[in-house]
């Protein structure tokens, strides 16, 4: 089980802030950011429009991640728009 978090505009548009997800296929399935992103994009149009590579950043276990970053059971994965603090 991984936990997926959404922030900012993404959270509002997906109407979801937290999505627990069973990694059904274990490490041979959703084992990277790229694969998890593809899985989420397939959930529907609103997902496709907002989670695409380039428009949503990703952090794994609270560290900025890339598409290659591996994902394993019990990880915390967050998708969010480019940041605008400061």
């Amino acid at each position, binding site marked *: 089980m991984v936990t997926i*978090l959404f*922030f*900012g505009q993404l959270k509002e548009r997906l109407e979801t802030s937290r999505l627990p997800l069973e990694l059904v296929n274990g490490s041979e399935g959703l084992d990277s950011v790229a694969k998890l992103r593809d899985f989420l994009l397939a959930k529907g149009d609103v997902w496709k429009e907002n989670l695409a590579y380039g428009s949503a950043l990703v*952090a794994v276990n609270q*560290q900025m991640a890339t598409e290659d970053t591996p994902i394993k059971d019990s990880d915390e994965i967050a998708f969010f728009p*480019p*940041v*605008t*603090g400061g």
Partner: protein
Amino acid sequence: MEADTLTYIQVQEDDFSLAAEYQALIEDNSRDGAVVTFCGLVRDMNLDKSVTSLFLEHYPGMTEKSLLSIINLARNKWPLGRIRVVHRVGRLQVSEQIVFVGVTSQHRQAAFQGAEFIMDFLKTQAPFWKKETSNDGQYWVDAKQSDNQKAKLWGI
């Protein structure tokens, strides 16, 4: 978050006091002769919209880690003394303080560049998001391409 005795990071809803932050930077610190501070405040205008307030969302847990890693990058580039970063979250009105960055050093240039570097990376790496309330309704602020370009200029 007391990362070590020289670094202080705080994310809070409450306002902060520049005077108190400055005091913490210089107290018992006769080694460092240069102190640079940056304060960011809510402007009344953004992209021709008249702003009345903004809401700052963040990613609790990641925010502090991200700020600490930015500060450590700065420490690797310049000989810096004490560093304090305070970032507010929640609802903020026009003219309210948003962020404080304070850096001390024995060297003027290091203090200036360290503080500017931390702000540049905070703007592009730290998980904060602004939602503005203006005469035109509420909307999430778009990230600025110029901020990304500025951060890239540091060559990291």
